[in-house]
């Protein structure tokens, strides 16, 4: 075997085969990692009765969420949006099974609360069906807004392998 061939074999073993062995180790150790729970998909919201404490604000909030709400997840952060109203989006974080999101709108009137920020806090229960959320929707800075309790059920799951054409 010539010296150049020997050098090539050593270099190949050191730079290619050894890293591949390391890759196997990385893949094995990575299996123990836990990723955040999946909440990506469409959710159907249902509000509990507000016992007569309604106002223009709370009515607007209920109207907003009565339709399907889409959650687009990126790890521990997510974006809430209304498929029928692109003006309203919420940005939130996921900590364990607790969700917190704040809503902003490109048009303050769209959220019905004169530009006051809406806040959503919820707990995720993964044991029921595709997952459920139970929490409160409120506008902390709006004096006429009573917090609203809600439950939401995951209507569709965006599983890996599912084509996602047309999303953005």
């Amino acid at each position, binding site marked *: 075997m010539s010296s150049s061939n020997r050098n090539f074999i050593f270099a190949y073993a050191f730079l290619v085969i050894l890293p591949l062995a390391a890759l196997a180790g990385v893949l094995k150790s990575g299996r123990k990692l836990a990723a955040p729970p999946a909440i990506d998909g469409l959710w159907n919201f249902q509000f509990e009765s507000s016992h007569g404490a309604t106002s223009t604000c709370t009515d607007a909030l209920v109207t907003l969420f009565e339709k399907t709400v889409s959650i687009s997840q990126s790890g521990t952060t997510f974006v809430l949006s209304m498929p029928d109203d692109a003006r309203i989006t919420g940005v939130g974080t996921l900590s364990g099974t607790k969700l917190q999101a704040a809503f902003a709108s490109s048009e303050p009137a769209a959220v019905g609360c004169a530009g006051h920020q809406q806040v959503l806090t919820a707990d995720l229960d993964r044991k029921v069906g595709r997952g459920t959320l139970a929490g409160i929707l409120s506008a902390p800075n709006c004096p006429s807004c009573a917090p609203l309790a809600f439950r939401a059920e995951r209507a569709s799951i965006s*599983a890996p392998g599912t084509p996602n054409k*047309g999303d*953005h």
Partner: protein
Amino acid sequence: MPNLFTLVLQITVILAVCRVTGGLFRRFHQPRVVGEMFAGILLGPSLLGWVAPHFSAYLFPAGSLGFLNALSQVGVVVFMFLVGLGINPKELKHQSHAAVLVSHVSITAPFVLASVLALYLYPRLSDESVSFTNFALFMGAAMSVTAFPVLARILVERGMMKSKLGSVAIACAAVDDVTGWCILAYIVVLIRAAHHATSIWVTLAGILLFAAIMIYGVRFLLRGYERAFRKHGEISENGMAILILLAMASALCTERLGIHLLFGSFLMGAIMPKEPKFVRYIVDRFETVTVTLLLPLFFAFTGLRTNIGLVKGPAMWFYCALIIAVAAAGKLGGSMAAARLSGMPWREAAGLGTLMNTRGLMGLVILDIGLDIRIISPALFSMMVVMALVTTFMAVPLLDLICPDQALRTVPKRVSVPDVPLQEIA
């Protein structure tokens, strides 16, 4: 039914913005494709949707994007056929030890580094619906790919195509792309098999059978094209129509087998005869429509899915910077180290590393598949798109620094390099 007015308006705006941005980038000695990729980002939620949300919603209503995507995917199918056509396995066989080592290291180094990075990013940017193995393998594949057409374009413009550095770079990029696509096919099969009734073994057997038919059957039939071209100096319209049909049928087969349309068209291109004049002839027939019409639609669609706004806050920008650093360290650093160990002088080794670090359009195509099959989240997709743009953009300025040699920088106005097509695509 698509709203034709909206669709044609979208195409018009996309083509105009892509031409203008591509032209601007050319003034700064960047390949046009970099400008067009950038134009896609400008048209998406990262700029147009942010600055003029109403106009953006009017121009790109959510319901219309399916049609735009369908058109753009046809463009990418044809593009992948042309990329496959540009790869000549025979040329790869005659490469030196240096090329073999560099090409393999330029895959393994970014791949391993990407999987190490995945250990950090998986709990932060993924979710439990994606397994770590699939996530890490995808990150590896996306980081180890090289933009073969962009690289060819840069080499042609710098008059480096026939240099040792140029030939090694082209061979390595070809090996990287073939390997990257094989790994991606494997990941797509794994993921889709987990959610479909068909056993993975049936899928794998089907893929192997299809590949065998293509390589040992269809490839020999395709030689008739080369013979006809030698005899008549052209391919008849019917011949071209059959060729398109074959490419589409091959794409449909791989889609049906559970991988992706693009693998079929790439394989069809790869098994085509490789006589340089014949390759150039076929490329010329497809190039104009693909490059000037269909690929800009793909850039725009990718831009519409890229939302830089999702990369919010110091933590997210740190992840983004980390992705860019790891991608560059793996690809540029890995290729450079291997080239140096193979005896290449430092300057050439660094030049080779810089060239291998361009991900360009190939990177976007892979990322698009990753988002489609939901293996990467929207925020990670946006970060990876930024990485693909940055690593492609940095190639020319870095080469100017590393290889300032006038002999290597001669830029002929029109260069004919028949054995490496796809110059215009880049």
